[in-house]
């Protein structure tokens, strides 16, 4: 048995860095906090690699030959009921170890890149403090030993994301975007919370190992029909997926992600491309042994994923802000991952979708982070986000150009780049599950190739733009991460995921199904070819095509008006028709009643006061008339 308790350091180091730089950052020179943050990340990157090596290759397997689920650290944080208690700890299993690699690698690259990218920005220290906070929260999320710990860190990544999107806080758009991101994901988290409440009440535990073990209480309890023909457990899984859908920007909770691009580009690369937005996928993967029993919930996962991937890919074809194109592309790719989980079975080759999903999550982190960091280098060089203001940049930014091309090939699914392998497995899994889903994803593959190369040609080829300053290549702190991630995007596809990360922890064999792989390569090539015709040289084919599509193009360009729908619901209905009347009601009805009571009391005492006038004559009149009245009354009563 290997002692893994040192893995607590993977969480504690970034937490310490956050406190250090957050409290005392202003006393350091900016560069110092950057270096402190980056070297701290380097340490935990090494620790994570070491852990992965130990876990996958040294640690003995469980009795059935699968990878163990291991509690490296675990302490009670809070007692709730007799059975329920929240623990804090580190759970090691194939997916959490894989996520450690993804997060620390991308985070390290982003830290290094930010030293160059954020150079001279006001709030440099604050930026690095927030990055450390984010790394801490994200790592805590993936190593969570129980669902409540996950929820806690889930909220913390949400707030780090809020703080980083709103980094340029004097810009109104950034403030609005950060607020939107927080509130939309918070709404989704409410679903997550309700799901947790139902799940924990039904099963009596938060613990992942118990919940996802072979004799999980989740399989036996809560199976009766509860609401709308679905069982309690199914509902709890649907609610939990709502949380995942919010964080992973699945339709219809996706609206925050495109706006989140207001944050600094390294943040978009780290949080909104490679790590935080895949938390939803990770959550479903974590609970997968339960989902597999709740087919209705799993179908929702599949269809939401598939629809989002198609929906986002269509919008991505129409956007001009390069970061927004990438944001929609991220949504689309996460849709792929969700779909893959949704179509997966459990155990051995049945669990192909699960493996493919995790595989795609891994490769996607590399090429999408690369695309964002490349976009950052481009924006850095030309000071614009809009691709129609760019062109011909390949001469000025050679390194960015080559690495960006590699990322585009990887995401388009051209072999031998990483994206091909993982996407191919997803398509195979979808093909064997449901042909409609397969057809949707097949179309998305073509669209992906098209919009990525639309972006690529528009930025690096097309026309010669006259720039105010001649654009120049980024400094080494920025190009080294680009090169590193490009290597990752090229070679990670060869990692034998079927031997490492599978639904039941047991390795299995796969053979490339050329019947699916070749058409998928072909459609990617067609997408690239179309993009080449449209965008390589300046011409008006694309504009003419857009015009011929009429309303559909306009709708896609306006992101199918989903934002407007939300705005209508929140601003009009909730703000104007609920909150405002409540404020009025409180002031005038509730408070009015209270004031009314005091008014009546006041008025009554004002009237009564006249009796106490102090005038003797008046008292005498009252006395005499009272006596006469009583006397008459008694006489009347007497005589009857």
């Amino acid at each position, binding site marked *: 048995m290997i002692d893994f308790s040192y893995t607590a350091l993977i969480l504690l180091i970034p937490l310490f860095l956050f406190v250090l730089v957050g409290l005392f950052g202003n006393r350091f020179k900016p560069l110092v906090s950057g270096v402190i943050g980056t070297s701290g990340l380097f340490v935990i990157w090494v620790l994570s690699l070491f852990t992965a090596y130990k876990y996958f290759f040294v640690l003995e397997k469980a009795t059935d030959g699968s990878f163990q689920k291991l509690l490296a650290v675990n302490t*009670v*944080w*809070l*007692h*709730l*009921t007799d059975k*329920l208690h*929240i623990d804090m700890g580190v759970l090691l299993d194939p997916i959490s170890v894989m996520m450690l690699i993804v997060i620390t690698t991308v985070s390290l690259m982003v830290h290094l890149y930010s030293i160059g990218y954020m150079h001279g920005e006001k709030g440099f220290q604050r930026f690095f403090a927030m990055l450390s906070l984010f790394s801490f929260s994200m790592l805590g999320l993936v190593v969570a030993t129980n669902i*409540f710990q996950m929820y*806690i*860190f889930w*909220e*913390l990544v949400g*707030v780090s994301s*809020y703080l980083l999107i*709103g980094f340029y*806080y*004097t*810009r*109104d758009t950034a*403030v*609005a975007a950060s*607020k939107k991101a*927080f*509130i939309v994901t*918070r*709404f989704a*988290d*409410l679903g997550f*919370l*309700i799901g947790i*409440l*139902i799940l*924990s*009440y039904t099963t009596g535990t938060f613990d992942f190992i118990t919940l996802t073990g072979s004799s999980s209480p989740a399989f036996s309890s809560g199976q009766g029909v509860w609401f709308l023909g679905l069982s309690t457990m199914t509902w709890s899984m649907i609610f939990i997926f709502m949380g995942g859908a919010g964080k992973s920007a699945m339709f219809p909770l996706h609206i925050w992600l495109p706006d989140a691009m207001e944050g600094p580009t390294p943040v978009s690369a780290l949080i909104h491309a490679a790590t935080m937005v895949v938390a939803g996928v990770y959550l479903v993967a974590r609970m997968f042994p339960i989902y597999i029993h709740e087919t209705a919930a799993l179908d929702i996962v599949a269809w939401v994923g598939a629809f989002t991937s198609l929906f986002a890919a269509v919008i991505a074809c129409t956007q001009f802000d390069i970061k927004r194109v990438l944001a929609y592309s991220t949504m689309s790719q996460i849709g792929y991952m969700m779909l893959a989980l949704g179509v997966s079975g459990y155990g051995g080759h049945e669990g192909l979708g699960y493996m493919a999903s995790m595989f795609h999550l891994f490769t996607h982190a590399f090429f999408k982070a690369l695309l964002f960091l490349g976009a950052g280098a481009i924006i850095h060089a030309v000071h614009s986000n809009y691709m129609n203001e760019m062109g011909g940049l390949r001469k000025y930014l050679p390194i960015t150009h080559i690495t960006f091309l590699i990322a585009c090939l990887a995401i388009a699914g051209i072999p031998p780049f990483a994206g091909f392998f993982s996407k191919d497995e997803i398509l195979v899994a979808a093909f064997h599950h449901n042909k409609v889903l397969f057809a949707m994803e097949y179309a998305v593959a073509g669209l992906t190739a098209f919009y990525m190369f639309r972006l690529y040609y528009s930025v690096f080829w097309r026309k010669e733009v006259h720039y105010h300053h001649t654009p120049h290549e980024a400094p080494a702190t920025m190009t080294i991460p680009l090169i590193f991630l490009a290597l990752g995007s090229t070679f990670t596809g060869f990692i034998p995921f079927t031997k490492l990360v599978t639904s039941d922890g047991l390795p299995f064999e796969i053979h490339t199904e050329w019947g699916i792989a070749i058409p998928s390569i072909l459609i990617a090539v067609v997408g690239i070819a179309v993009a080449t015709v449209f965008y390589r040289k300046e011409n008006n084919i694309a504009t003419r095509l857009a015009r011929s599509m009429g309303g559909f193009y306009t709708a896609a360009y306006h992101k199918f008006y989903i934002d407007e729908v939300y705005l209508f619901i929140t601003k009009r209905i*909730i*703000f104007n028709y*609920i*909150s*405002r009347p*409540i*404020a009025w009601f*409180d002031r005038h009805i*509730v*408070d009015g*009643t*209270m*004031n009314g009571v*005091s008014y009546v009391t006041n008025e009554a005492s004002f009237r009564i006061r006249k009796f106490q006038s102090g005038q003797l004559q008046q008292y005498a009149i009252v006395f005499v008339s009272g006596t006469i009245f009583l006397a008459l009354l008694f006489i009347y009563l007497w005589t009857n």
Partner: protein
Amino acid sequence: MSFLTLFIIIPVLTVIGILLCKNHMQVKWTAVVGMSLQLITAIVLIFLFLAERRAGNMAEILFIQDNLWYQTLNIHFFVGVDGVSVAMIGLTSLVVFAGIFASWDIVDLPREFFTSLILLASGVFGFFISLDLFTMFLFYELAVIPMYLLIGIWGSGPRHYSAMKLTLMLMGGSALILLGILGLYFNSAPGGGPLTFDLIQISKVHIPVETQRFLFPFLFVGFGVLGALFPFHTWSPDGHASAPTAVSMLHAGVLMKLGGYGCYRVAVFLLPEAAHQLGWIFLILATIGVIYGALGAVWQKDLKYINAYSSVSHCALVLFAILMFNQTAMNGAIMQMISHGIMTALFFALIGMIYGRTHTRYINEMGGLMKVMPFLAVAYVIAGLASLGLPGFSGFVAEMTIFVGAFQNADVFHRVATIIVASSIVVTAVYILRVVGILLLGKIRNEAYEMITDAKWYDKISVVALIFGITVIGIAPLWLSDMITQGLGPIMQKLLSAAPMLH
């Protein structure tokens, strides 16, 4: 003499000291010394209490002192603490300590101001330590009356109206409480023998269910008024808006907790059957209060109104949790009182400091303050995040304990109520981020604010002490939660034994 008497003696000595002072500076420093001593005593009390428990002293009440005070009616000066009251005392001393520093700038009549403030505090301390219903009530009144003077004299805006409204509504509440207490008194010895106000003794007596049903509304509504029970909460927005900073802090932070504490300690503890039977009515009111307060806050433009409505929502959550009648939710209720107490004190302190610099509380007239007062702005963001229940701060711990506890009641009514209440976390996020966005971020809207200075040293002490409080509980809640749980033993037993009698 019990250690607890110090909590009355220190404020009284401080008040005497203040009256002897010659100038402003001396007054302030006397107050600081007195309240720092009080805070230290409270911390010592927490440690002593935990040490006793660890040593295996599982007595229901610790540090008891019992003196006969007025023989004819058998009134005692009977004090003692359990885990719950220790926690409340810790809260009170922290808020009072921070409140002294937050009112450092007071110019008019500082001597009288600090005297009333500390008198108020001594009332609150007395309330939390007493176990004799009459003494408890006496201290309760002692806490409410200085409030009238503090708002009426040092307040702002329509202060006379607000002070009068607040005092009248709270007095109405106390009238109900007094009736309830007398009712308990006359039922305290059903088998003959001397009548008593002793809370512990009454808790051991079985009061007939019909009598309980009659008394429960008096006590619950009476204390509920102070705990901002819907629809008796309207004193809160006006009262807070007019009150000076430290008074708002103490009022929302501590005084409103007297309501929740009273509901828990007197109404539910002594009348468990009636609580079971009538609880649903108040549960509906509390559920409405949570959502209503939160939605009401969304529309407000005055910082103090926003926080007053937010307090209505958070305090209604306390009552909601108490009415769930299980240990987890009760524990959450107490933690929510502590958490909300510190948090809201922090909010009102910051609002006071911001108002002192900008001379307005309307969020639309400010903007971009992050640039000119980073310390206060960051503190405000922290307070906001704590208020919307971010993990790492006390609010999260309390809310989650309440939700998990409430969910243990498996019937549809409680489930629906819990889900409605849980949805307030979204609304809270909306109004908090709205304020942060308008007030602190963006560009500076008023050029005059370019010259504003950031927090002074005394502002920083006040703010840091409170932030420290919410963070410690938020990061390491186990000790507090365990301490409270032990204190809940007797009430849970009573509630459990009451439940089967109904069926």
